[in-house]
């Protein structure tokens, strides 16, 4: 009498895109094979097309309005809830990260725990950033004058290639805190943790369209993201070195705000576990616009 476990066939997961709160397959009907760090095949990931990317930007633009209009405290609570839900899926994330990045189990767990904690750290900034980065300005005339930060709008995020979860979360949380919506291109070689993260986002209270996740080839997608006229800012951390110049040139054409990895920083060697290096209000500020308001004072 054989135990049922010996014969049970595993139910595999289909890894899809995440656009506007839904999980479509790529409209292009294409996929690419994703392998583990040791070379073992893991899954077929969607090879998103430029049309998928445009759909994602459209969803982000629509979602940004409501997200930015939420109260700061509400955004903070919603992002904190992402941490809550990830906590319940620690094992799943640890398994995926271990396979994708070739980490031993203990190390993978540390990475996942830190990713969860990073959501908590950034979530807490939502209702503080205006106080820290805003100002009341003592102009030399009878006017009340103040400066407040606002979210830039739609942020294109090219996720770090090496750190598939912790690097991604460290770059994703900062623009979300203030009310930006994000279109992200996941790590090309290690996209699966990003897809699983999108499943967490879908079941958290982050409104659909606030985060959109694309998997595919960076050479195909990054130029479209960089040149897209409705993307206001671009995080180029995960842009391959060979594409850096062309990407930044394309972004220049519509005056995109760039958040660039310094050329002196090697993405593959960057220590995402270093809290001091990765928990920075400057990373939130990179996706803010400062608005200054004047009003006369008088009876």
């Amino acid at each position: 009498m054989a135990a049922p476990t010996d014969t049970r066939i595993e139910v595999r997961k289909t890894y899809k895109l995440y656009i506007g709160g839904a999980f479509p397959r790529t409209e292009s009907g294409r996929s690419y094979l994703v392998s583990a760090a040791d070379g073992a095949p893991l899954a077929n990931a969607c090879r998103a097309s430029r049309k998928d990317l445009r759909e994602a930007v459209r969803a982000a633009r629509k979602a940004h309005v409501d997200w930015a209009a939420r109260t700061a405290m509400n955004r903070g609570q919603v992002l904190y809830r992402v941490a809550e839900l990830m906590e319940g899926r620690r094992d799943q994330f640890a398994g995926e990260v271990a396979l994708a990045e070739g980490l031993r189990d203990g190390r993978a767990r540390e990475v996942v725990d830190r990713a969860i904690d990073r959501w908590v750290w950034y979530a807490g900034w939502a209702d503080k950033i205006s106080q820290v980065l805003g100002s009341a300005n003592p102009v030399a005339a009878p006017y009340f004058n103040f400066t407040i930060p606002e979210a830039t709008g739609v942020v294109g995020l090219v996720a770090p290639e090496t750190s598939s979860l912790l690097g991604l979360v460290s770059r994703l949380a900062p623009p979300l805190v203030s009310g930006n919506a994000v279109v992200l291109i996941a790590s090309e070689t290690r996209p699966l943790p990003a897809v699983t993260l999108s499943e967490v986002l879908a079941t958290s209270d982050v409104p659909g369209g606030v985060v959109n996740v694309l998997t595919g080839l960076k050479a195909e997608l990054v130029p479209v993201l960089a040149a897209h006229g409705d993307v206001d800012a671009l995080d180029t951390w995960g842009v391959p070195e060979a594409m850096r110049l062309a990407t930044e040139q394309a972004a220049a054409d519509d005056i995109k705000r760039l958040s660039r990895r310094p050329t002196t920083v090697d993405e593959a060697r960057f220590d995402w576990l270093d809290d001091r290096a990765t928990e920075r209000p400057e990373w939130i500020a990179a996706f803010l616009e400062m608005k200054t308001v004047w009003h006369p004072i008088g009876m």
Partner: protein
Amino acid sequence: MAAMVSSTDKRVVPAATNGVNSWGLGDGQAIPWEYAPAPEARDLVTLKERYGLFINGRSVAATGGGTFTTVDPATEQPLARVARATTADVDKAVRAARRAQSRSWGQLPGKERAKYLFRISRILQERSREFAVLESMDSGKPIKESRDVDVPLAASHFWYYAGWADKLDYAFPGRVARPLGVAAQIIPWNFPLLMLAWKIAPALAAGNTVVLKPASTTPLSALLFADVCVQADLPPGTVNIVTGPGEIGMDLVTHKLVDKVAFTGSTEIGRRIARGVAGTDKALTLELGGKAANIVFDDAPLDQAIEGIVNGIYFNQGEVCCAGSRLLVQESIAEPLIDKLKDRLATIRVGDPLDKNTDVGAINSKSQLDKITELVQSGIDEGADIYQPACDLPDRGYFFRPTLFTNVAQSHRIAREEIFGPVLSVLTFRTPEEAIEKANNTVYGLSAGVWTDKGSRILEMVSRLKAGVVWANTFNRFDPTSPFGGYKDSGFGREGGMHGLHAYVRLEDR
């Protein structure tokens, strides 16, 4: 920036003929006034025949000895010959700045940097009239504005940032602020000295050194500022000034020893500059074009709004990136408001920039005048209704009448493109939603204005307008403590205030 006419500064003489100016009865039909000339003395300014580049604390000729002429746009007469820098000169200037950054200026404690900047501010105050007259001669702006706005604000900008030089730790809690290094700064011709101050003051306060390129039509106040640096005993190489055509600006931007690029000017050039820094670690701030909406609700204090509208678009001949060039009027008050505006336009005095009564001076250059003329013609061709007060323009010089377009559609070029001249496009709206929609319907996002008596409406409008500066029941106010800069294609980064410092520092962990 005060209202363009104050009741105390006009000498009123009824004139028998031509109805040049009028007051109050509608459409230029009323009592005509005439003003006696009130010229500012030009002899405070001693123009040199030739001006050199300012590199490493000295005035030097350009390599190869090239020069170009800067003219007085009000007379079309040449003012001086100015050195035309070459790529080699740009290199010398950047190397001088690099040396000063690592050896002298960059080594000074903040306390000492502060004292230099206070000195500069004081010297600007002491020589304010000289600067004002020279600025008006070279740029065409009314002496009233260079005297009361440009020069005092430039001085106060240095004053404000002087105080920051030794207090950077308080501006960036938890971080150590380090200078970026050498800043390449390119400024436009509309506020030559003021833009210089906006660029140089925060850069020096944070410990950077600079190479500044003024616009080729307005180099003189920057070269007079070089003299201020000498008077202040500023270490040689801390401030370097190179004059010449636009191409040397790109040489400056792409120079490998430059760490920071700051540009104010057109969006078109801004794109080229952003492309120029692509792929490098250079920090970049851009302050580009605008097409601001000035929104007037039916409960607005009408007379104040009229002054704000006039100040918003006719200040500095409308050659202002944040000019309120699109007037959005609530439909119910459009007619009386436009009537009042036409009356007010008839009192605007256009003419000699050096005349203390002048409200609107000369357009900065022939090419700018041509651009304005072309865009105004497009407004007529596309079917908008033009109104210009009947005023005499001087026989020579680049002048343009204050112009008002009604019946403007959002699709018209005069509603979409930055004219950078005294040309106002009037559109109407019915609901606040429509006003927001129309105001934000532009690639630009530098500034906006809102006129209403209702406080909650002001705050709602403020939060929904995509603009870096929102003036509520006022317009075109500037202050060194107040951050300035754009959303969208109007650029990124802020100048002024604590936020202006951020553009010139690298933050390190404590």
